[in-house]
């Protein structure tokens, strides 16, 4: 709706989105099944779920969020670096902060 803003009218059947939906559902189902229906050691379950989570992330970025498309300037590149920084801070920070539990439990 802006002069410097082109329209993207998608043509053809959105196969990419269908496959993305199926992939994300399957990844979620595996995680649920692993946690609820099997009796593997927690460390194994957590590791597999983390790997599935990263897979889920890639599905979202590539299948739904048009990560590889851009018209002029690729704003998503600096954003993804910031996202990696935040993800690292949140995950590593939480592990560091919550490790006190090992001392008191």
């Amino acid at each position, binding site marked *: *709706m*802006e*002069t*410097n*803003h082109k329209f993207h009218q998608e043509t053809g059947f959105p196969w990419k989105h269908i496959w993305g939906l199926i992939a994300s559902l399957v990844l979620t189902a595996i995680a649920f099944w692993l946690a609820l229906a099997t009796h593997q050691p927690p460390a194994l379950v957590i590791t597999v779920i983390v790997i599935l989570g990263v897979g889920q992330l890639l599905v979202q970025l590539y299948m739904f969020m048009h990560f590889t498309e851009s018209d002029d300037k690729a*704003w998503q590149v600096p*954003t993804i670096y*910031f*996202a990696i*920084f*935040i993800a690292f*801070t*949140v995950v590593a*920070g*939480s592990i*560091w*902060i*919550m*490790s*006190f*539990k090992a*001392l*008191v439990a």
Partner: protein
Amino acid sequence: MGNFREWAMHFFMLDEGPLIWTSDVLIILATIGIIAVLSYFKLWKWLWDNWLTTVDHKKIGIMYLIAAILMLFRGGTDGLLLRAQLAWPNMHFLNADHYDQIFTTHGTIMILFMAMPAIIGFFNVAVPLQIGCRDVAFPYLNAISFWLFFAAAMLFNLSFVVGGSPDGGWTSYTPYVENAFDPGPGENYFLVALQITGIGTIATGVNFLVTILRMRAPGMTLMRMPMFTWSVFITSIIIVFAFPVLTVALALLLIDRDFGSHFFTVSAGGMPMQYVNLFWIWGHPEVYIVILPAFGIFSEVFSTFSRKRLFGYSAMVVSMVAIAILSFVVWVHHFFTMGAGPGVNSFFGVSTMAIAIPTGVKVFNWLFTMHKGRLEYTSAMLWAVGFIPNFLIGGLTGVMLAVPPADYQYHNSYFLVSHFHYVLIGGTVFGVFAALYYWWPKMFGVLLNERLGKWHFWLFMIGFNICFFPMYFLGFMGMTRRVYTYPAGYGWGVINLIETFGAVLMGIGFLVFAFNILWSARYGERDTTGDPWDARTLEWATTSPAPTYNFARIPEIKGRDAWWIMKKNGESINGPKDIPFEPIHMPNDSGRPIIMSLFFFIAGAGFVFEWWILAIIGLAGVLVTMALRSFEYDDHHYIPVEEIEKTEAAAGRL
């Protein structure tokens, strides 16, 4: 039948005494009043066509602000009830349960349903105009954001009279809020309402991020953007990265409560402190989400009413970027007393103190903007000038709280209560009031009365200091937050009484403001120029209020303070007269956002009361409305040239 009667008495809280009965009567009277007025003046169609279905950012902004002012009234009433209860030792105006519920709703409403919609309202009112575009990037999504917030706010407020309010504090810490200790729908209201408004807020973050990156007028480079737009840009980034953490924390807790999992229970290996950790990973960036736009507002107000360009523009931008990054690495300072150990506490203590540096840079830049300026003390400027010392007190006590060993003394005392009220009221609320006086003519085409504005400022500012400054000392004297009463022997009585007096003064200030709105609507000075303050940025170039399409022609930007440069060069916003206008492409209005949020409300009620059929109906409705949108191809229209010419001629701009 007896069973049903007992259930209904409890469900509608008729066994809870006169406070609830009075609220019931007032709610019913207000609802009947609204319906009667709308029907009598035949305004239903007008309301639906012009407001409820609109995708116009200016109208959505106004609706956000109306809702925010109503919620300020609700949250303020909560605050006054708390102050009444604390006014004297051994008071029993409220019982302990009611006191808990009221401080919980006070905090939650003030942060999520007052501060957030107020600042998002100003995103909508100002940003597209400031960068010279015709609407936000996703106008339809913008309407969904607003209606999700509105549905969530209504759901949350309903808790007061149906089923009981949440009582776990606005932070809703586990393990207390788990089912074992806190059964009933109250806490579910908190979780579900925040979840729904959170979806809307994330969408707003995405919307303004894309709007600012992709829709600036030609020549408006990033470093030529007005400072308020910069603050919205940075805030949107923080929203996009912080809010998903809240979504996860609330979802896990709701699964614990509704479906019996054990993420945060002590039994079955859950970790209650992990909820606290997740909450503040969102919670700390959240306080910057509500303060950075206020910083942006003050930057605009200072430079406009000092008749100078903003001092240290690039330093302002860099310090906001620094605050944005630092805001994600300080969250443990909210729970130093958890005892994560000296390494963790020292790291987060130092990172917290570091935030004072970029904030200090900004304060000095504001002072230098005023230095040797031609200052004009309008109401908006008074709020901005008042902000500096008040926010400074809040900021410095924040640095005191950032020292971990000292924090063990102040933690959860009234020292803390005073600190965060000084930064949130002295920063955000002052900023919202400044912006209301500053942008009111742009929103409604009429100026608020300056004389009443000054009464509002002085009553509120003095009342605020009388109410909150003594709390620092009460904190040192050992009074902790969230106690509903206290014995006479501690010597807290007189100080508390003085504070309650200050709170009443703030309430009177608010009433003066409400009166100002009504008075100005009828008798206020009309703004026919579009630029009542002789301001500098682009929103003042168009008429007040701006036409639907904002700018008849998208302006070419030649520098910072774009409108000031145009005025100096004697240029018109519509460009040279001989070039004809072109048809303007605009999005269509849609009733679907409000219908979709109604389904969200239904689903939310289902999750609150664990009525799964209702939840399924609500969620199915959401899915159907989303799917219908996907098959909507006719979603835009063109405004013909004749209509643009007619509008511009009527405004005397041809």
